[in-house]
């Protein structure tokens, strides 16, 4: 992912996944007019400038007994997550964000041009996913050397993984201090373009490669792939 490194350094040339942007925009194969293409391009440039991607990750022990998932710093129950963590012995907990300048952009165009706000919303969501994939790939390489395999990342709020767990995750990772992500009283993340997730570590190669949408139990979701 040289392109990602290049973007870190220069603020240009982020490795966009255009298809993902279109998916978030609800695109279903319609013809894309020139002015919409242009708008998407402009939004990408604005985000490359405004976003400051940061992440933090830490490793914890993992034990699952009687459907209680115990990560040392956090205990929870979730059938979906339990399935995702089958055969795992340790766990990574991580947080990532594009920073608050992206929210300033979203707010700006929420007031001034809602079409631009919608495209920025979609493009920043895609950008965050790509950044998380990049981080995961780096950890995958690191852990593979030690004989660990990474399971797909799984976020609080996916399926039946309780959103309440955000409180513990924020506390143990010190997310507000280290990457500037905070939790509102209603458990929303601010800045909004932020992610927390857990990643199971297993000595067995991936028996389950389901990731993102497909791993989620909410089949009615409009944005499901």
């Amino acid at each position, binding site marked *: 992912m040289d392109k990602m490194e290049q973007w870190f350094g220069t603020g240009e040339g982020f490795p966009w996944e255009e298809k993902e942007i279109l998916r978030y925009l609800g695109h279903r194969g319609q013809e894309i007019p020139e002015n*919409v293409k242009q708008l998407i391009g402009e939004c990408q440039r604005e985000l490359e400038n405004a976003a*400051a991607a940061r992440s933090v990750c830490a490793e914890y022990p993992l034990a699952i007994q009687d459907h209680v998932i115990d990560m040392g710093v956090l205990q929870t129950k979730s059938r979906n997550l339990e399935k995702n963590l089958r055969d795992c012995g340790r766990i990574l907990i991580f947080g990532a964000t594009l920073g608050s300048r992206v929210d300033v952009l979203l707010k700006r165009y929420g007031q001034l041009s809602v*079409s631009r706000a919608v495209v920025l919303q979609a493009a920043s969501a895609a950008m965050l996913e790509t950044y998380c994939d990049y981080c995961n790939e780096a950890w995958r390489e690191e852990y593979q050397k030690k004989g660990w395999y990474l399971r797909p990342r799984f976020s609080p709020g996916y399926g039946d993984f309780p959103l309440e767990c955000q409180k513990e995750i924020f506390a143990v990772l010190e997310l507000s201090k280290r990457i500037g992500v905070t939790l509102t009283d209603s458990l929303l993340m601010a800045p909004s373009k932020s992610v927390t997730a857990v990643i199971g570590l297993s000595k067995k190669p991936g028996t389950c490669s389901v990731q993102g949408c497909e791993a989620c139990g909410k089949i009615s979701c409009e944005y499901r792939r």
Partner: protein
Amino acid sequence: MDIRKAMEERILFCDGGMGSLLQAKGLKPGELPGIWNITHPEALVEIHREYLEAGADIVTTNTFGVDGLKYNGQTGYSVEEVVRAAVRNGREAIRQSGKEAYIALDIGPTGKLLKPLGDLGFEDAVRLFGQVAAIGADEGADLVLIETMSDSYEAKAAVLGAKENCGLPVFVTVTFDEKGKLLTGGSPASVVAMLEGLGVDALGMNCGLGPMQMKGILKEVLALSSVPVIVNPNAGLPRSENGKTVYDIDEDTFASLMGEIARMGARVVGGCCGTTPGHIRRTVKACQGIEPVPVHKKGRTVVSSFAQAVVIGRDPVIIGERINPTGKPKFKQALREHNLEYILQEGAAQQDHGAHVLDVNVGLPEIDEPSMMEEVVRELQSIIDLPLQIDTSDLDAMERAMRVYNGKPLINSVNGKEESMRGVFPLVKKYGGVVVALALDEDGIPETADGRLKIAEKIYQRAAEYGIGAEDIVVDALCMTISSDSKGAVTTLEAVRRVRDELGGKTILGVSNISFGLPVRENINAAFFAMALQNGLSAAIINPNSDGMMRVYRSFRALWALDENCGDYIQAYAPEAAKKKAEAAAERRGNTGGPGSACPETAAAAGPDAPTGSALAAGIERGLKEQAARAVRELLSARDPMEVINQEMIPALDRVGKGFEAGTVFLPQLLMSAEAAKAAFEIVRESLQASGGEQEKKGEVILATVKGDIHDIGKNIVKVLLENYGYEVLDLGKDVPPEKIVGLAVERQVRLVGLSALMTTTVPSMEKTIALLRQKAPWAKAMVGGAVLTKEYADSMGADCYCRDAMASVNYAEEIFKGQ
């Protein structure tokens, strides 16, 4: 000895990390460290004492993150108990060590982002910090150390909280990343400007980086700061080793880098995460014999926003004048109707045209100026990163705006009248700011430059008595229109030049006053602007949307060697040159823009396959704003406005809406169409108003994102569509409590309420709102939408309509208001 005095005499040493030492003594992850002040006082005293014995002059209380949010009664201990115990532990350690040392009351961030980015109110933050400061001071702390701030706004709240609740010296350190930015985007220049404005006694940086990475940022801060600089780095850059955090440099390397940092000019040094008494002992040793670098006043005139600083000096500054109702009926109407969108548009347009600072004036006799000023400043600073100039003669409005402002503002204005100075200077002293000083006093505006300089001198002198330096004053020598005073310009220009040459001061002018009462005012304005710049004008309040004025500005900078390689000039005007060249070439070929022309907009409209045969409809359907606006103007010259709406615009909108529902048009297209229609509607509305008519509204609809939810994109989409269909949208914004929504529905007898929620956690607020609506406003229908909602969910909470997308809300509104 007062620490401020001690700091003048020698380099002072802070202590180092606390968290890892407490963990070594048994603090569990997730346990609140503050409680240890009470449960394990001996552990705290021991750590403080070890730091003192290592040579620290300042012990920092174990109160990082102690505030009323976290210690809210559920922890078993109150903020008061914890803070008092923490200060006592520090005092006991000092007693045991037998040294003269200072207790710094540690104040860290709340862990919350402030509104509007997060959900903590600014005044709530001030109160939380203020509570800790008041208790700590009462218990005997010697100073307040506000640290690890990564958001300038929260840092400001903490400084105000401390200063309003105790008289202790205030030190502030912020956390920069490796690019030298705060997490919320601030730069060393913007941070220094704001903190100095707030009158902190020392400032600097801590955490985030090791001493190596801080050196570059320190250099920048030292060049800017007029107060002593603090450096408390981590013990290097962290990495995780077997689940433990380790740092990339050892104690000796740390200490030798800290020695370099002291030699560069830092006056208070210590450590943060990962540092131990060992680091501090070696640092003290490494700094032995280093002659402290004197702290100089830098005398820079600088204003800031949350993200950037603007220096007022040799390179002229453009201050956009458009946010001002004077002589603008549309602006006045926007203010009366509380139409902030209009004001934000004015702000954004000026930024796009090259303004560096935005003047904000919302004074109108019939509105509550202080509330409006505060609100407009809050809104502008949340979407625009330019510094603001707070322009009002109402002291209450001025103070409220300065208080909530995230940075160091320009203040417009003070004058030579005693009453004015008595009112304005205390505000500038407290909140910080650069103030515009009008060269007039009780006797009016002097006719001569001499007279105006005398007033300027008087203002400088009175400001100094309040502790405000000359660098925080910019003199407005005042423009008198030449149509009534032929010497007006000559006198002003003389005064501008002499303020610079004789008083060493900075100047500002509202340039366009000069031409009042004359035809084609742009001619005079542009010429006068160039003359004023030549005479040393530092800042000009102008209309940056005026091409002529910006041409003067950019040309002046190129001519005056302020624009390296004429880069800015070329960037601004090369496209214009290229366009002219292309047009000339096309003309030579006899091509007048028929099929195959380079302009896709006109080609689309005139082309044989334009979908409706109408340029207006095509403009709307294709989402081409300018084409739609142009076309509607043409149509209005021949046809009745209502006919244009009903026969052209609404059918076009309907076609796009149907296409969206059928899946042939996707969301960005729908919205670009809506925006093109909106632009066209504006023009129709103006035309209707000009002929004394008005577009009839179909009805009022309340829109709100429910309490707890801070996502408003869905609501904004619905709003723009409903407005196009002729509804009056009462937009209550986001995070809106049920009482407010229902209150408005009752007050205005609104028939339709649209509610949006994005998260499962905020859906209960939606349910509550509907329940209250049923009770208090049974006539009102509730339509709901949002990512997590489903038809079943909406039904279960008693909503009248589940809107799966924005068009669905339009269709429902049409149904509700049909045939009324």
